Structure formats: C-alpha cells, structure tokens
C-alpha cells in the first residue's frame, strides 16, 4: 500500500537534485518499510577478540594471553561454524546467529591501509578511498537516492550529526531530553532569529522537526537515557528509543549509532575486563535495539563496523595495537544469516598484512553496497557512481538479505 506521502514522493522524485554526483540521478522508488542501522564502532574493535578464529593453527600462539578457549571447553568461545566463535559476552548475537539473523564477516576492512583512527573513521564514513575524498557521508548520499528530502529518512543519534550522515540531504535526529522542553512560542521566535545563520538556521529547523517526531513516538521516554552517546556512554537506553523511532510508521528508516571505547592497547582482558565490558554493552545495546524495533525487526538490517582491526599478536602490554583487517556484524530480521563470511587468509606470519595484521580479503564496501541495493533497493548504477565512487573492485555481495 502506498501512503499519500509516499505517492507524492514518487511524483516529485524526478525533480530532486542529487548533490555530489556530476550526473543527475533518478530517485529510486524505495521500499520504505525497510530499515537500515549503521553502528559505527569508534576506536578500532579487536576483531579476533570478538570473533576468535580458534581453529586456526597459529591462533593460540599469536594471541597468547588474549586467546579464548575453543567452544567445547569451559568459558570457551560461542561456536559459529566450527572455525570461528563469538566472545562469550556476545550471547544475544549468538542467539541471533542460531536464528539465522546474523552474518559475521571476518578479515574485512575499508580500503584504508594506514593506522590513524581519525583518518580511518573519516574514510569509513565518507565512503571514498582517502580521508579527504569527500566532505559528506556515504549514507547521506544514499539518502538522496531513497526518497524526497523532506521525508527525513535518516536519523542521527546524539547532539550533532556524524560525518557518515552529513551532507545535502537533511536528516532527523534524536538525543535524550534532559532539561525542560521550551515552549513553542519561544522556539518559533528563536527559529526566526536563526533563519539567516548558515549554521544555526538549518540546525534549529531540523531540531524542531525531530523534537516533534520523538515527542510523538516516545513521549515521556525521551527523558530517559544516559548522557553522551559519543564515547563510552550506555548504548542500551538509547538503542531502545532508536528502535522505536525507526519502527514508527512515519519514522526514519536509516539510523546511525556510535559506540566508542574500542581502543584497547593495554590489558584488554579476555573473559572479563575492559574489552569484555565493551562487548557486553554492545551486545545488550543490539538486543535493546531489536526489542525497540518490535515487529519492524523483520524488515531491519543492522551493520556494525569499525575503522580497522588490531594487531593479530598480543602486544607487550596484554593489549593490541592498531591493525588492518577485522570483523563486522550484520544482523536483523531481514538478514539471511547463520553464516560466517570470510575468505580466511590464515594467521601464519607470511599471510599477515605487513607481517603483523590480519590480511583483509573482503572490502567493507561490498557489504555496504549490498545493503543499499539488495536491502534498500537502490539502483546499483547510482550506488556505484554517487554513493561509493571508486568502488568498482568492491562488488556487492549477493544474498545477504532474505528475498
């Protein structure tokens, strides 16, 4: 069934200009019941800690004190496919895996091959092959293909918009409300004052719109939730709210969540400790997101990715330094899961990237592109030209989502 709003969107589609692409692209007819959540894990997740390759002959020697036991032993990894496991803190993800709702990618990376967090994150978010390749985010460029800009299909979580969602297409936003809301009269006077300011003008327009939306969907729940989502704040309270906002019939369809705190250079721990705590928060956050989405979970894909992996070998201080290949998670009711997708390079020294890092054998953009085309139904030529230019070598993966 097409809503009236949807119909208008289709009619107006041809007139929407696409920013950033040299050639105007027809706006796709989008399946607006599909949801996509991108979880940006800032700080470089240790893929081999989250997804131990316990069957690799070199795993135990290289991982040393950080190695997890095989699934059949006490406190062992949660088995995936006889080759790979999940960290025991990821129990909810393991359940999803068994319900065929989770695909785990391994030996995956963006095209970035240096080791700066900040450049690595810029590239993960701008969708090009260099940190300054574009000033807007690939997800924002994808939104331009999805539907009319005034529909606010994108949702930024937090007080500001992360790079991956920044760009010409306006997006909605959500942050927990902590002070009394202002009355509409005052806000409209303020909006008038901001109108001609290039920074404050657009921000308040979007803010007022977003406030109305989150009031409708969340009501008093808006007041709950922790402080800063950026960084190590609790993901759970926020994820529930985001799930509900995405589930709302006229809500956003694409959201970005950020989780920091993955930069585990020292004493990262195994079953307990710093990284285990992080993973548990992540696990609980994703479970909360699923709960918040309710029945919309069936139409949802959640991709969790980080800027790069960490060194295969444990470093001198029971942690790991900046690396290259790592793990990513794709989950949701729309996912054809229960599989590990990994062209495993092996952990022998001569198979490692620069003799130290997990060799990437899969480009993250192959996953992102598959989600934009296969899940959201965007035309692949436009995705190729506008969203991920320079990505010819990263072919979209087949069959990630259920038909």
């Amino acid at each position, binding site marked *: 069934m097409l809503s009236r709003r949807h119909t208008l969107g289709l009619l107006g589609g041809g007139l929407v200009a696409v920013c950033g692409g040299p050639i105007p692209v027809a706006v796709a007819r989008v399946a607006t019941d599909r949801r996509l959540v991108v979880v940006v894990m800032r700080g470089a997740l240790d893929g081999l800690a989250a997804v131990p390759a316990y069957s690799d002959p070199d795993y135990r020697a290289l991982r040393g004190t950080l190695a997890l036991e095989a699934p059949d032993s006490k406190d062992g990894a949660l088995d995936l496919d006889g080759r790979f496991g999940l960290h025991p803190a990821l129990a909810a993800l393991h359940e999803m895996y068994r319900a065929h709702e989770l695909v785990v990618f391994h030996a995956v990376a963006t095209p970035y091959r240096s080791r700066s967090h900040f450049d690595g994150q810029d590239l993960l978010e701008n969708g090009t092959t260099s940190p300054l390749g574009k000033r807007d985010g690939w997800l924002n460029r994808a939104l331009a293909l999805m539907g009319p800009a005034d529909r606010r299909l994108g949702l930024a979580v937090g007080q500001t918009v992360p790079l991956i969602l920044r760009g010409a297409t306006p997006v909605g936003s959500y942050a927990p409300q902590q*002070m009394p809301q202002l009355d509409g009269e005052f806000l409209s006077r303020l909006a008038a004052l901001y109108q001609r300011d290039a920074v404050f003008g657009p921000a308040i327009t979007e803010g007022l719109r977003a406030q109305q939306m989150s009031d409708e969907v969340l009501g008093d729940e808006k007041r709950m939730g922790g402080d800063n989502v950026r960084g190590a704040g609790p993901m759970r309270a926020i994820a529930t709210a985001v799930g509900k906002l995405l589930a709302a019939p006229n809500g956003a369809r694409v959201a970005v969540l950020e989780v920091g705190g993955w930069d585990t250079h020292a004493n990262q721990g195994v079953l307990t400790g710093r990284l285990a705590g992080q993973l548990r928060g992540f696990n609980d956050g994703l479970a909360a997101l699923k709960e918040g989405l309710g029945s919309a979970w069936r139409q949802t894909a959640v991709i969790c990715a980080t800027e790069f992996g960490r060194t295969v070998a444990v470093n001198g201080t029971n*942690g790991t330094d900046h690396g290259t290949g790592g793990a990513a998670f794709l989950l949701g009711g729309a996912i054809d899961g229960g599989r590990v997708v990994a062209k495993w390079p092996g952990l022998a020294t001569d198979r490692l990237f620069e003799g130290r890092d997990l060799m990437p054998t899969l480009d993250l953009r192959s996953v992102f592109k598959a989600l934009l085309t296969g899940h959201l139904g965007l035309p692949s030529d436009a995705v190729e030209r506008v969203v991920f230019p320079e990505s010819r070598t990263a072919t979209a993966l087949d069959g990630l989502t259920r038909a």
Partner: protein
Amino acid sequence: MTTLQTFIAVTRFGLGAKPSELQSAAGDPRGWLKQQLQSGSTLPQRLAHFPTGSQRFAEFEASRRRSDAALQQALRGSIRESYIAEAGARTQVQIDSDTPFRERLVAFWSNHFTISVQRPPVLGLAGAFEREAIRPHVTGRFYDMLLAVARHPGMLLYLDNAQSVGPTSVAGQRSGRGLNENLAREILELHTLGVNAGYTQADVREFARILTGWSLSRPEDGDPGTFRFRPFIHEPGTKTLLGVQYLDGGIREGETALLALSRHPATATHIATKFARHFIADNPPAAAVKRLARVYRETDCDLGALARAIVDAPEAWAEPLAKVKTPNEYVVSALRATGYAGENEKLMQSLRLFGQAPFAAPSPAGWPDTAEQWIGPESVLRRAEWAMALGQRINQFRPPDTLVATTIAPVMRRETQLAIERAPSTAEAVALVFAAPEFQRR
C-alpha cells in the same frame, strides 16, 4: 560603547567579557591581550592547593593494589570527588580569570595534548596534568611542554607508555613483555608532525622502542608516580626515526627525538594550522597558517611568540563571528557575563549536558574545533534550553539592556534587538541574548 576590536579581543581571544574587563581592554585591545602573555605562569589561587599528579597516582595505585573492589569504590568515590573538585575549580578559573587570553591558551594546549578521564587511571590525574605539564609552558617553548607531557603520569598512563617494555631489554627477555605503540603513534600523529607528514609504521615502531623505559616510580621505588626512566625495560640498540639514527643512549634518545620532532617543519605547519583554526576560522586562510608556521620555526618553537603572532594577524580581526563557541566556551562566556557561577556539581552538569565535561574528550585527538562538530539539530535546542534555565535563575538584568551592552551590542542584528525588546519576560529576554547566534559565536 564597546568597539568591534574590543569585542573581538574579549570574545575571540578571551573567554567572553566580564563586565569589568571591557574597560581594561578598550584602550588598546591588542596590548591588553599581549600583556596577559607576560603575566608569568603562576598557578591561579583556586588551583594552588590541589595534590600533585604523583600523589594522585599513588592514591589510584594504592586502591588498585588493595583489590579490584577497592579500586572500583575509589573510582566512584574519592577519586571521582577529586576529579569533580578540580574540574570545577578549573572551570571557575575560566569564569573569573583576569587573564582570559592566557586561560584560552591553557585550554587550547591542554586539548592539543588531550588525556581523557574516559580511561579510569586518568580520572584523578587530568587536572594535575594540565596544572603541571601544560600551564607552565603556554608561553614557553613547545619542546618543554612536549617533554613535560611525555614525562607526566597522566600521559604515560593514558597512552600506555608506562607499561611498554623493550622486547630485548633485560626485563623484556625475562618477562616476555614488549612494546606498546600507543604513545609513540599519537605523538607523531597528533602532537607533532600530523597525520600525513610522511612517517611510516616503521617510524612508529622505532619511536616506540626509543620511548621504552619512560615510565613511573612504583610504591616500592619510593616517590610513587613521579617520572622514572627504567633502564632495564629500555630497548637496547640503535634506532632509526625519520631517517635519523639514535645510538644507544637511554633516556637521551627520547629527549633528542622529542626535540627533533618539535623542530620539524611538519610540526610547525601542523601547530600553525590548529592555532589558526582556533583563532581565525574553521578553514583558516593559508597565508596566515604559513606566517604562523614561520614564526614558530624562526623563534625555535616559542609559543609566546606564536600567541603574539596570532594577535597581530589581521585575519583574526577581520570577521567578528567566524567561529562557533564550543560548549565549554559557551557556558563559560555566559557565566562570565552574568557573574553567576553556581556550585561545581551544577557547573559539571551543564557541561555534561552538552557532551563536553572537562578532561573527558572521546579520544586522544581531543575536542573538535569546528562548528559542524558541535552544532546540530539536538545541540541547538539543548543550548536554548540551558539559556532559558539561566534566564530564569538570574534576575539582576531588569531590563536586559546592560547585559546586551556588555555582551553582543557591537554585533547585534536588528532582528535580535527587536526580539529581545519584545520578549514577554525578563527571563526570556535574557535567554534570547544567550541563545542568539551573536552570543553563540566568537
């Protein structure tokens, strides 16, 4: 009537006017700024009585050794209290300082060399780090600051170097412990050369080897938490950093490397760019960056000279509202204007609300310094809500004319003036002053 030049001096270079300071700045705004650079580096009275970083480390270490539970309790209790006390005092210093340009420089350099309380060992130490490693050097030499930073327990713990061990050192061979690259990489990438300056992974590795042994005294060594070079964990042998060989020289290797990095042309450009971004515009003009970099090089890394050069840069005086205030700058400037500071807990709440609690940056890159990173759909509303709460709490501005006169008058637009005049209550009028773009920019 405040002139535009005075307005720029007190808002862009300073921390927003205290009503009393407008007169001092008025005659010669540039001179007023430069004079603050000569005022010496004495610690503000409010910060004088806090314990040293070493004492803070000893407190942390004692709890840690007692038990995990004791440490968790201390982190939620006494250590957290000392953090709040000092973070609050430091913010109060910003609110009532008579040398606000100097305080801005402290905040700038403190942010350049970020350590963050998001890592538990830093929670009690962050204030001491700023007091001991940053403050004494804001008008001194960059390499003195860099050296103080690299020796401070705050940085050695935050970026893990205290634990880094040379794999073939005496201790390394015995224990099997080894390198941690974290501090070495971030000094190259964030503190000195900048990310695309041409260094390689091998340079990071070599620099990490050079820095092994830069560590801390433990309780059994006496004087716990003070800097201690540990020869037994220092990696022996020659190292090559950026094509330069460092012969086996113990602590001297690191000292020489830090000096060389400070003097590197890429460091001059990196620092000049950040400085110009902070004082001129998010995308600073290339000519100004080039000039500042030259000053830095020609004065042998003199940060006082750099600060004088930015005061003399015509670009910094050309556009009065080019920068958007960070949350910290926003809160501090509003409280300077009203003279209302409130207690520490409240102050911390305000800063947390905007996601900028003191010393809590999300990564070693520090807080961002561009508008797009701070202003978004939610943050504009949070700022307006905060402005309203402030308007409702204070009542000395009836009518708000004096507040306008000491804040946004020189840059106020007609529509802002009308909105303030037509506000139905004083609280709303005051809120409008603080929520106006003219006040939220600098």
